[in-house]
């Protein structure tokens, strides 16, 4: 990697106030590549376009082909997708688990290492967003929706399997021991929503941010490979990496949008008796897409940030409401107990080799890791874009530790309350309800359930909007060769494509099959992420040491 030092102090005679200057010294990578040099710029029907020809065309065609194939040959193709994914999680579970451990170790190491002092965007760069706005955005993009559905479901499921001692029990379970099973269930859940997923996001986000803001390369997955591939990243190897990122992002978002609409519709049927038909779900997807379009037109600051803040405020209100009216003392003590249990069980849960609970480690952990990793290009790129001006240490504490703690609190509150309802009050409905209704059944046992359930549905919808809008921004940026200033209609195009594909798959079937395929992209991305770890260390080492 050839570096040339650049003094980034502003011009003496014309300092501009608007610029976050002075930025201090940074080491730009010396390359002749000009961002957007491979782009096609044209005006079609009065709309300006600025796209990376190869990445845009190939990823669009591949995505369309996959969707058409899935729709046309559902019965034939679903087993193929399942077999691919079964092979990956069955035979390569150790690889996913080992890789995720490496990510966690790297991230924690960076917090304590002197490299943690390095600032994203140059030594004197100023953050673009407040802590609250920044955290809201990264949390809403990273996890939001999953917490709504799995917050109740997963603790209950792991508790059940642990209590029964079946082959799906984490670490062999705690057969017949209610307290032990509850503790193990919570630890296993927190394991899947704690340090590991956030470390996966942090690795992608930090590598992208570092190579864009400090090294001057385009905000695109391929840039992370510069230390290894050199100038070749601007050619086909780079195109393939970016195409894979588009593929993972678009399929991840589309299938989640479709499945999420199914779940939100189930909630609306349960609460208001709305008909659980295709029409309800299509209207939901259209509604979500329209709000997402408004949000991306308003931009990151006024659209995505605002929605994310509203989202987090509502989620916090719901969380504290459940803490207040639920088993408050149990949640308060449970928080620390669960945290301790998590730490105690962490080495065993994250052990990649010689697992005796293969069903759990392959069916749950490896599946989750592949899922998080397939989402990581999108979440990581979005986090990268809003993280300029933070030091590496600040970044890691905020992207790794704080969200993990919030996950512990969330899981303790929702899962703990549900387990308590089942164990202490003998309410079996919570356990027996379908996955999309468990949250609502749990809330029903608490006061004001009409209001809280309504808030929960709105939250689900807004979480989807924040996924859809930030996802469209990310896909647009990758397909525009790393440009974040491509014409607005392109963003709208991607938001509409996501909605349209979700509707097509919802009506034609095959959502679950395609989701399986999307998660399979987690495998190649795990390799990309391992490279990113190397690139992060190499990139940070070449940064000027900050004071």
């Amino acid at each position: 990697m050839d570096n040339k030092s650049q003094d980034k102090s502003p011009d003496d005679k014309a300092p501009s106030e608007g610029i976050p200057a002075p930025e201090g010294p940074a080491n730009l990578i010396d390359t002749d590549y000009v961002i957007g040099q491979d782009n096609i710029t044209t005006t079609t029907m009065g709309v300006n376009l600025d796209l990376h020809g190869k990445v845009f065309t190939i990823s669009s065609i591949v995505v369309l082909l996959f969707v058409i194939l899935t729709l046309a040959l559902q019965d034939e193709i679903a087993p193929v997708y399942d077999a691919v994914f079964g092979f990956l999680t069955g035979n390569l579970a150790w690889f996913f688990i080992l890789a995720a451990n490496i990510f966690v170790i790297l991230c924690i190491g960076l917090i304590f290492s002197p490299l943690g002092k390095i600032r994203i965007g140059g030594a004197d760069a100023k953050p673009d967003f407040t802590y609250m706005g920044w955290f809201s955005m990264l949390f809403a993009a990273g996890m939001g929706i999953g917490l709504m559905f799995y917050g109740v479901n997963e603790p209950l499921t792991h508790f059940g399997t642990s209590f029964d001692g079946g082959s799906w029990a984490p670490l062999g379970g705690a057969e017949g021991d209610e307290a032990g099973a509850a503790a193990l269930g919570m630890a296993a859940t927190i394991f899947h929503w704690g340090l590991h997923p956030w470390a996966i996001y942090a690795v992608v986000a930090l590598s992208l941010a570092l190579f864009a803001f400090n090294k001057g390369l385009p905000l695109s997955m391929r840039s992370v490979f510069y230390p290894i591939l050199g100038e070749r990243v601007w050619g086909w190897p780079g195109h393939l990496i970016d195409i894979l990122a588009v593929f993972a992002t678009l399929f991840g978002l589309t299938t989640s949008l479709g499945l999420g609409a199914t779940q939100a519709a189930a909630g609306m049927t349960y609460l208001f008796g709305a008909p659980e038909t295709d029409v309800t779900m299509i209207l939901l997807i259209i509604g979500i897409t329209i709000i997402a379009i408004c949000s991306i037109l308003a931009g990151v600051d006024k659209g995505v940030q605002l929605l994310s803040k509203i989202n987090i405020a509502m989620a916090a209100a719901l969380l504290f409401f459940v803490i207040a009216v639920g088993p408050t003392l149990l949640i308060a003590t449970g928080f620390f107990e669960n945290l301790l249990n998590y730490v105690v069980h962490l080495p065993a849960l994250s052990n990649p080799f010689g697992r005796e609970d293969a069903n759990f480690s392959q069916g749950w952990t490896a599946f989750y890791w592949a899922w998080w990793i397939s989402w990581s290009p999108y979440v990581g790129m979005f986090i990268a874009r809003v993280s300029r001006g933070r030091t590496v240490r600040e970044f890691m504490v905020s992207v790794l530790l704080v969200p993990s703690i919030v996950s512990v609190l969330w899981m303790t509150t929702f899962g703990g309350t549900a387990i308590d309802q089942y164990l202490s009050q003998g309410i079996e409905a919570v356990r027996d309800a379908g996955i999309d209704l468990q949250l609502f059944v749990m809330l029903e046992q608490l006061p004001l359930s009409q209001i809280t359930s309504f808030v929960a549905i709105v939250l689900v919808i807004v979480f989807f909007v924040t996924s859809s809008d930030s996802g469209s921004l990310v896909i647009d940026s990758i397909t525009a060769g790393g440009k974040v200033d491509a014409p607005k209609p392109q963003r709208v195009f991607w938001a509409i494509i996501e909605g349209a594909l979700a509707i097509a798959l919802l009506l034609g079937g095959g959502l679950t099959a395609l989701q399986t395929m999307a998660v399979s992209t987690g495998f190649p991305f795990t390799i990309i992420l391992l490279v990113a770890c190397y690139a992060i260390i190499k990139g940070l080492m070449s940064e000027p040491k900050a004071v």
Partner: protein
Amino acid sequence: MFNNIMVPVDLAHLETLEPALDVVADMGKRYDARITYVGITANTPTSVARTPQEYEQKLDAFAQERHQVHGQPVSIKVYSSTDPVANVDDLLVKAIKEIGTDLVMMATHLPRHLDIVMPSHGGKVATHTDASVFLIRPAK
């Protein structure tokens, strides 16, 4: 009548700006006004510059070039943004206030249907400022 003319500049699309620049030079000379060129760029690397500082240097070079042409005093101001495409109108309105300009001269495109959903920057800026706004369309 006009003391400080503000001219938003997109260094990535200078060709669309060319006709407007001549008019700006004429107006600057006519009123003996200072001309401030304003640039809005992304925080991330762009096709023009890899850092906002590099963008600033390029805009300054552009302004000096224009000074050679029209001889009026020039200055520049750069704003960097996470999402420049979405924030450009707000930043231009902010720039008008901060610079204390009394006339904004902007190149713009011909009216089109898309303007209903996504209004032109010039049109939007004009509705949000007290300063005079002069929109210069490409010659037919």
